[in-house]
C-alpha cells in the first residue's frame, strides 16, 4: 500500500475512534446539567446520586476523548505537511481558538467537577458542570468550523504557486461563517445530545428491567428522554438544511449521497439501494420525483448527476457514501419515532410498564453512535478527492518526508493501543454500570456497603 492510502486509513481510524467520545462528553454533559439542576432545585439526594454516577462515566469518556484527541491535533503536521502549510493561515486560527477558548475551559473546570464535591459549594460545582459542557460545545464549534471551511472554503485567497501555494485569510468572519458552518455545527451538537441521552436511557432502562434503582432510574430516563425528543426532532431540520447546503456547494457529493449518475429533469429519491460504480448505475427502492421535491419543493427543477462532472472529481467510494448516508437518515427517523412514542407514554404514565419498549432502549445506545459516525463518513468520503474542496487534492496534501514504512509502523501502533483502549473502556464502563448509582435505601439494609464505607473512612 502506498503512503497516501495508509495515511488516509490512519487518519480515518484515529478520528473515527476519537469521535466515539466527544459526542458522549457533550451529550452526557448536557444531561448532567439538567440532573444537577434538579438537585439544586429540589435538594433531593436522589438527584445528587444520579449526577455523581453519571459524572464517573463522564470522567471515563472524557479521559479517553482527551487522550485520543491530542493525537488528532498533531497528525495534521506529521502526516499531512503540505496540507498543513497550505491551510495553516486559515485552519490554524480555528484550531488555536479551540485550544484557548474551549479546551482550556473544559479541562480547567473538569478538575473541580470530578474532585471538587467536598471543596466547593453546590452552586460552584453546578457552575463547573455548565462550564465543562459549554467548553465541550465550544470545542465542537471550532472544530466543525475548521472542517466546514474545508468543505465550503470562503474568506481567503491563494498566495504562491505549485508546491508553495497556500491559503491566506482575508476575512475571519467569512471563514467562520462559511456557507456550511452553522448547519453543520447544530447538526453535530444535536447528534452529540442524542448520543448522550441514549446512553443514559440505555443504562436506566437496564436498571428498571433488572428491578434496581427504580425510582432514580425513572427520573433519569425521563430527563434524558426529553433531551432526546427535542434533539431528534430538531435534527430532522438541521439535517435537511445541511443537505441543501451540500446540494448548492458540493453537487458532486450530493449526487454520490443520492446515487445519481444521470442528470434528470426530475430526480427520484432512493429510500434504499445499491450503487454499482463500475456500471454507473443505482438500483433500489425510490420515490419518483422525491429528490427534486426535497431540494426545490417543486416537481420540475433538475438535479445534476455524477456523469455531468469530470470523473477525476468523483469521490472514490460512491456506494459507501450512498450507504452511510442512507443508514444515517434511517437511524435518525427511527430515533424520532421511538423518542416520540416513549415520551407519549411517559406523559400517560405507562412508559415504565412497557418492558418491550425498555428492552429496545437498552441496545438503542448504539444507534446515535452509528449515525454520528456514518454522517461523518458521508461528509468526508463525499468530499474526496479533495481535502480542501476545489483547491487542494488529498493526494497532493501528504508529508514529503514521510514514507509508507513510517505510516505502516504508526498505524500498527495506533491499532494496538486503541484496541487496548477500547477494551479497557468497555470493561470499566460495564463495571461502573454493574456497580450503579448509590441508593440511599440500600445503604441502610446492606451491611457490606456500610462496611465498605467505614473502611474508606479508615483509609482517609
Amino acid at each position, binding site marked *: 500500500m502506498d503512503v497516501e492510502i495508509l495515511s488516509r486509513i490512519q487518519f480515518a481510524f484515529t478520528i473515527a475512534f476519537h469521535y466515539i467520545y466527544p459526542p458522549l462528553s457533550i451529550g452526557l454533559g448536557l444531561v448532567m446539567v439538567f440532573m444537577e439542576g434538579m438537585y439544586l432545585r429540589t435538594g433531593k439526594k436522589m438527584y445528587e446520586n444520579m449526577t455523581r454516577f453519571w459524572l464517573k462515566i463522564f470522567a471515563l469518556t472524557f479521559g479517553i476523548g482527551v487522550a485520543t484527541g491530542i493525537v488528532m491535533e498533531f497528525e495534521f503536521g506529521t502526516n499531512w505537511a503540505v496540507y498543513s502549510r497550505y491551510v495553516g493561515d486559515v485552519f490554524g*486560527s480555528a484550531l488555536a481558538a479551540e485550544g484557548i477558548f474551549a479546551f*482550556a475551559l473544559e479541562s*480547567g473546570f473538569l478538575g473541580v467537577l470530578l474532585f471538587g464535591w467536598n471543596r466547593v459549594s453546590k452552586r460552584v460545582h453546578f457552575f463547573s458542570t455548565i462550564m465543562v459542557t459549554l467548553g465541550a460545545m465550544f470545542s465542537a464549534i471550532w472544530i466543525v468550523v475548521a472542517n466546514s471551511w474545508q468543505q465550503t472554503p470562503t474568506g481567503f485567497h491563494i498566495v504562491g504557486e505549485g508546491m508553495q501555494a497556500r491559503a491566506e485569510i482575508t476575512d475571519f468572519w467569512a471563514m467562520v461563517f462559511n456557507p456550511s458552518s452553522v448547519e453543520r455545527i447544530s447538526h453535530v451538537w444535536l447528534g452529540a445530545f442524542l448520543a448522550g441521552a441514549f446512553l443514559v436511557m440505555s443504562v436506566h432502562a437496564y436498571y428498571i428491567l433488572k428491578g434496581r434503582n427504580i425510582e432514580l432510574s425513572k427520573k433519569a430516563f425521563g430527563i434524558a428522554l426529553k433531551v432526546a425528543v427535542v434533539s431528534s426532532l430538531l435534527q430532522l431540520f438541521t439535517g435537511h438544511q445541511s443537505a441543501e447546503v451540500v446540494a448548492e456547494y458540493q453537487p458532486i457529493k450530493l449526487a454520490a449521497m443520492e446515487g445519481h449518475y444521470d442528470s434528470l429533469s426530475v430526480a427520484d429519491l432512493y429510500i434504499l439501494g445499491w450503487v454499482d460504480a463500475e456500471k454507473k448505475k443505482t438500483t433500489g427502492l425510490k420515490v419518483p420525483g422525491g429528490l427534486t421535491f426535497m431540494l426545490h419543493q417543486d416537481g420540475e427543477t433538475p438535479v445534476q448527476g455524477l456523469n455531468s462532472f469530470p470523473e477525476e472529481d468523483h469521490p472514490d467510494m460512491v456506494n459507501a457514501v450512498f450507504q452511510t448516508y442512507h443508514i444515517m437518515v434511517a437511524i435518525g427517523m427511527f430515533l424520532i419515532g421511538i423518542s416520540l412514542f416513549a415520551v407519549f407514554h411517559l406523559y400517560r404514565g405507562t412508559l415504565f410498564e412497557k418492558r418491550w419498549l425498555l428492552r429496545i432502549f437498552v441496545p438503542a445506545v448504539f444507534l446515535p453512535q452509528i449515525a454520528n459516525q456514518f454522517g461523518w463518513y458521508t461528509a468526508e468520503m463525499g468530499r474526496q478527492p479533495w481535502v480542501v474542496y476545489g483547491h487542494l487534492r488529498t493526494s497532493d496534501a501528504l508529508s514529503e518526508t514521510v514514507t509508507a514504512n513510517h505510516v505502516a509502523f504508526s498505524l500498527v501502533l495506533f491499532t494496538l493501543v486503541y484496541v487496548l483502549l477500547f477494551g479497557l473502556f468497555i470493561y470499566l464502563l460495564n463495571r461502573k454500570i454493574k456497580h450503579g448509582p448509590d441508593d440511599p435505601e440500600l445503604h441502610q439494609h446492606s451491611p457490606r456497603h456500610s462496611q465498605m464505607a467505614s473502611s474508606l473512612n479508615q483509609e482517609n
Partner: protein
Amino acid sequence: METILGFDYPTLWFFVVGGVFTGYAILDGFDLGAGSLHLFFRKEKSRRIALNAIGPVWDGNEVWLVIGGGALFAGFPIIYANMFSAFYIPFMLFLVMLIFRAIGIEVRSKEENKTWRKFWDVAYSLSSVLIAFLLGVVVGNIIIGIPLDENHLFRGSWLDFLNPYSLLVAITTVALFMMHGAIYLTMKTEDRLYERLTVLVKNSTIFFVMSLVIVTIYTLLYIPHMVDQLSAHPVMFIIPLIMMLAVANITRQISKRKYLYAFLSSAVVISMLLIIVAVELYPTVIFAPNNPENSLTVYNAASSEKSLGIMLTFAAIGVPLVGTYTAFVFYTFRGKVKLDESSY
C-alpha cells in the same frame, strides 16, 4: 509591517508560542516529574496520594501542550508541518506515551487487583519519564539545529535525532522535571510520605545540578551559536545569572523547608533555560547547520500579518481567561491531599 510596542507580529507570536510552551513546561513539568518519581513510593497509599496530588490539575496542564501545538500550527505552519513530519517516529511514540500516561492515571485505582495496579503504575511512571525524555530530545535538536534542504525539509533519518548532545539535554530535562515534581509533591503531602519526599527532593536536585553543569560545559565548548547573543550583548548575561541564583535559592529553600518558594524558584529555572534558548535562536527557530540560508525563521515561516493579528487578539482575550481559571482550580485544591470517594 505593523508593530505593537516596537515588535512586529511574527516576533510577538514567537513570544506567545514560547510563552505557552514555557507554561506547559512549568505546569506539566511537575506532573511529569511526579510521574517519574511514582515508583519510588512503595506503599499503596503513598502512590494514591502522589497521584491525587496532580489529580485535579494534570488535565488542565496538558491543555497547554494542545494550545502550544495549535499556536504553532496557526502562526508558523511551515515549522509545524516540517518539524512534525521530520520527527515522525519520535512524535508517534510521544503521542502513544501521552495516551498511556493519561489512561494509567485514569484507571490504575479503578481496580483493587494488585497486578492491575502494578501494571498501570509502571505504565504511568515509565511514560512520564519517556515523555520528559522525548521533549528533551526535541529541545536538544532545536539547539544544535537540524539539516534542512532548500525547501526547509529534513531528509535524514530520525535516528539522527538521538545524538549525544540531545540525549544529554533529554536526561537534564528528566532531572529538571523530577526536581520540580518532587518539590510540588512535598507541598501536597504530610507525615512519612513527606519525609520520604524531602530526601527525594535533595537527590533529584543534585541530579539536576550535575546534569545542568555537564550540559552547560558541552554547550559552551561545542555549540558556538548558542552563545552569540550573550557575547554580543553582555547585558543579557542577566538571564543565566537569574537562573543560577534561582538554582541556588532552590537548595536554600529546601534546607529551610519552604517548598512553595523552592517551587517558584524551580519554575524560574525552567523559564530562564527556555528564554536563553529562545534569545540565542531568535529570529531563527530551526537552525540549519548545513546551510544557514535554509533555516526556518519567524519571518519565512510565519502566517500572514492578517492571520497573526487575529490570533494576537485571541491571545489577548484568551490568555487572561485561561490564567484565571487555572488559578481558580489551583486555589480550590490548595493544601495537602485528602483522599475521598472521588479520588483516583
